[in-house]
């Protein structure tokens, strides 16, 4: 798992690569939260184009970040999930975050 950050105005763009499961989501969550606090941003875009596997830990991860971003009045969205990841996203209302 690898994660890269970019800032576009008030939006933090998070590009995740590799597999999201319980094992990788712990570090992912830490990195995303500390970047979100450090940078002058309020919105978040999560780019999933490089994600090759995701289980329900990914739902928990994205929901948790959604709560965090909403708590500061920001917006969160998901970009470019692969078909097998879409199947997992459809299991939850975070499917509606795909832009």
């Amino acid at each position: 798992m690898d994660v890269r950050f970019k800032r576009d105005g008030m939006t933090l763009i998070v590009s995740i690569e590799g597999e999201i499961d319980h094992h990788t989501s712990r570090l992912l969550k830490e990195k995303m939260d500390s970047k979100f606090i450090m940078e002058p941003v309020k919105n978040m875009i999560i780019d999933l184009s490089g994600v090759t596997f995701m289980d329900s830990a990914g739902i928990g991860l994205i929901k948790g970040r959604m709560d965090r971003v909403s708590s500061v009045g920001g917006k969160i969205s998901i970009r470019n999930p692969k078909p097998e990841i879409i199947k997992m996203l459809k299991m939850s209302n975070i499917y509606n975050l795909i832009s």
Partner: protein
Amino acid sequence: MQPVNKMRTEFISKSVNEGFARVVAASFVAQADPPIDILADIRTAVSEAVTNAIIHGYDEKEGIIIMECLLYTDHVEITIEDFGKGIDDIEKARTPLYTSKPELERSGMGFTVMETFMDSLTVESVPGKGTKVHMTKQLEYR
């Protein structure tokens, strides 16, 4: 009906083994040459069951997990077993969105994912003794 092939893998409850278990199960089933989306579903279901053994069964402490796969000509049967704390109320545990660990950002969707991605799911559990999750999947489209 006799399985055409069988395997049994034992590993300890380290979270890095979630990925290990997925790879092992998928490469064992791959010998039957199933469509890739069926293989992806199996990978996901195995990940859910193994993760549950680690975070719920053993509360992230060390314990043993056994994964068994029986391969038949048209389907696979996968069993994932732990010897951890067990489940008091299986029906409640299987309810979508139910989680006993919301503080860990669990979504309570693991069993629902296993049910949706596989063709059948059976859960056996004895409180204080452990949990056995049994799943089957057809390896070709019907």
